[in-house]
């Protein structure tokens, strides 16, 4: 009977092994599609087997590229783009991507946000895309876009966006408190930081403290960072640029003087300021004069949340030139469908027709539904996102005269304004650890602004947090010591 027990247990073990083997086979299923990659070039040649579509796995942290994925399927009926969206609110996307490395789950194409694109470009998991470089010359892709996606002469990612920053203000408030709503005149009033603070004081006084200059001073973090002389990390040492110190002092000044609404960025209160529906704790309405947002902030953030305030906004350069965000696309070197992945990247970031369609609102819901009937109702691409190709930008700029965005901006062409700012963007300041270093600052800075800790404690807490995240990094002495 002992034998039968042994037999039973071994049978069970064997069964479980078969089961796990099946599981393994299932996850590796996309692998066999490696072979048809080549014939995919001539789709009409193999009409005999139309059922077998080549699968391309695309991961992203927004639904933006999903629209392009559908458009891509329209051009390549033989490809099935499987789109996976993972939010990056607290870094979930980056973690999931790291965890997929070396497994069968690794995607073919990945979207990489400005805050962490360098981390991937500097590591050796992305495919070399240098053979696409001639296209960037043809399209006159903005230099910073190419620069950010490359490391040591190897291009590993391209973006369909260029993301220079702007300064959006409420015309009615400007007229009421500053005496004019003319963009040129208002620009003169916020041309540098001293003037910016003066104007903030004027607006506070004129509204008896019920109108704030900005939603939160955190919006100015990117402008300050864009004007640093050095990136965060040089030779494995953390650099505290004077601009970082200036930012901390500026944030404190804005808080202490009541020039900011104290709403946290990306929370309900911050959005409510855009539609003029913000109410303080006593239920009294309060207003926000301006928002610092880049190109994508206009069609994706400010305009959709602006409610009744459309037409009351204007766009100027603000006190500092900057850039903020952007999405790069790269291919995983381990991808079994590398050729198709490159084809996808080419379509997304380096295709004149696609970029034009993307920016001008050709990808309506009806357009996408004609390609894929299962496209959800809310999926579409409204016009206005700013693209990375100077050729396309110049071609479509006149189209924005008289568009809905033009009316929303009270008669301003956003494309023209951003088109002037885009070539000036500096891509050299980004390094791989930016995201984590900058995120680590939020919490101690909030405590410092609240007055819960001293400035010396703030610097110490932030530096400790950075060291905790990057044990290998050399950390300098804090600029202010207790």
């Amino acid at each position, binding site marked *: *009977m*002992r034998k*039968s*027990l042994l037999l*039973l*247990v071994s049978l*069970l*073990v064997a069964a*479980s092994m078969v089961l796990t083997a099946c599981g393994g086979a299932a996850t590796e299923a996309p692998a066999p599609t490696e072979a048809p990659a080549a014939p995919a070039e001539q789709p009409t040649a193999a009409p005999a087997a139309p059922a077998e579509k080549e699968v391309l796995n695309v991961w992203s942290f927004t639904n933006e590229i999903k629209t392009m994925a559908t458009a891509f399927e329209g051009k390549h009926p033989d490809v099935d783009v499987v789109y996976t969206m993972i939010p990056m*609110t*607290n*870094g979930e996307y*980056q*973690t999931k991507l*790291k*965890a997929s*490395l070396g497994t069968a789950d690794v995607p073919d194409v990945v979207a990489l946000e400005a805050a962490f694109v360098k*981390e991937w470009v500097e*590591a*050796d*998991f992305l495919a070399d895309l240098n053979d696409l470089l001639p296209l960037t010359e043809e399209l006159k892709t903005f230099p910073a876009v190419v620069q950010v996606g490359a490391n040591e002469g190897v291009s590993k990612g391209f973006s369909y966006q260029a993301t220079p920053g702007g300064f959006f203000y409420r015309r009615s408030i400007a007229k009421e408190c500053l005496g004019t709503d003319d963009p040129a005149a208002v620009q003169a009033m916020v041309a540098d930081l001293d003037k910016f603070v003066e104007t903030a004081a004027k607006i506070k006084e004129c509204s008896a403290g019920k109108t704030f200059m900005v939603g939160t001073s955190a919006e100015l973090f990117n402008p300050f960072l864009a004007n640093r002389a050095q990136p965060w990390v040089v030779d494995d040492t953390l650099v505290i640029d004077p601009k970082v110190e200036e930012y901390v002092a500026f944030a404190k000044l804005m808080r202490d003087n009541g020039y900011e609404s*104290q*709403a*946290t960025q990306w*929370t*309900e*209160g911050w959005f*409510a300021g855009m539609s003029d529906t*913000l*109410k*303080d*704790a*006593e*239920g009294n309405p309060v207003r926000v004069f301006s928002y610092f947002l880049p190109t994508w902030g206009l069609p994706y953030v400010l305009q959709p949340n602006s409610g009744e305030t459309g037409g009351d906004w204007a766009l100027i350069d603000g006190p500092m030139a900057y850039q903020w965000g952007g999405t790069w696309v790269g291919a995983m070197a381990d991808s079994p469908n590398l050729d198709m992945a490159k084809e996808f990247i080419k379509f997304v970031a380096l295709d004149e027709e696609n970029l034009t369609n993307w920016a001008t609102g050709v990808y309506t819901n009806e357009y996408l539904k004609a390609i894929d009937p299962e496209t959800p109702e809310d999926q579409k691409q409204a016009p206005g996102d700013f693209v990375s190709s100077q050729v396309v930008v110049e071609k479509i700029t006149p189209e924005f005269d008289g568009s809905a965005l033009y009316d929303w901006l009270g008669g301003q062409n956003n494309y023209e304004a951003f088109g002037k700012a885009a070539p000036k963007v500096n891509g050299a300041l980004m390094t*791989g*650890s930016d995201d*984590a270093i900058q*995120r*680590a600052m*939020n*919490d*101690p800075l*909030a*405590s410092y602004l*609240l007055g*819960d*800790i001293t400035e010396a404690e703030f610097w110490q*807490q932030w530096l*400790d*947090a950075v*060291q*905790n*995240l*990057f*044990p*290998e990094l050399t950390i300098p002495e804090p600029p202010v010591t207790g």
Partner: protein
Amino acid sequence: MRTGRLSTTSYGYLFIAPFIIGFLLFGLYPVYNTLALSLTNTTMMTREAHFIGLENFKRLFADDFFMKAVTNSWLIWLLNFIPQIGIALLLSAWFMNIRLKIRAVGMWRTLFFLPNLLMPAAVAALFFSLFSYYGPANQLMVTAGLQSEAIHYLQKIATTRGLLVFIQWWTWFGWTTIIIMAGMTAIPIHLFEAAMVDGASAGQMFTQITLPLLKPILIFVFVTSLVGGMTMFDIPFLLTDGRGSPASSIMTNNILMYLKFSSSKGHIAFASSVGVLVFIMTTVCALGIFYFLRDREGKATAVPETAPASPPGKGRQPA
């Protein structure tokens, strides 16, 4: 007849085999692997890794983040576990009391258990919105005159910790109540009847009969809750900014582990060293609970084993 007896035994082995195999694959191997990883400098973003001995552990003790995480985990667990077990015992005693004759016990039990069914992500998002600067909590408190002005609840150490403790308590006391009631149901009613005949008070019955006979259940609640508390992650991670802010006051062991993993090229080895230390700490404490709550007289009590096989739902552990 020897064969018959053996075949019964072998059926036993057969029935526990799936658990043993599952445990070896998904329980023991990860522990071993974590231990092995913690002695290397493996990261997700670089392909090569070396054995570096106890370097990770040395680094961990060099800054005070690990001790902070351990302190936070214990503090948050104790602050929510003490009221949790207290309220659960009280509610169970009331519900089970034949003299009180509380009506609709089933409904109350369900109501108290409901928060446990909510997704942690939803609960965290709810509290984040409620207690944001421009959120309803501030408006309510200011208009009611309880606060002079709006407060950044989630940027203050005391209020953030308080909220976290409340959420943990609120989502888990119903679960604990149900487990304890299950344990109480198993106590033979004749013991209480005999005590009543002898003129025992309700308090005496509780301390002399209910509590001692509940011991196995209490050990179960204690240990699962301890494990849950030491590995608490989802709510504190989602409540603020994923780093346990403000001032790392709700950074628990697992958040620290996650931080180590998610930064610096995915330092999985460093994260493993946190995991190993938490594992050791939790094991020692769980063994301690078994030791101190063991049956000292060594005689078998009449309590049937009613502890449920595993905590319910989503692989979460009560905290």
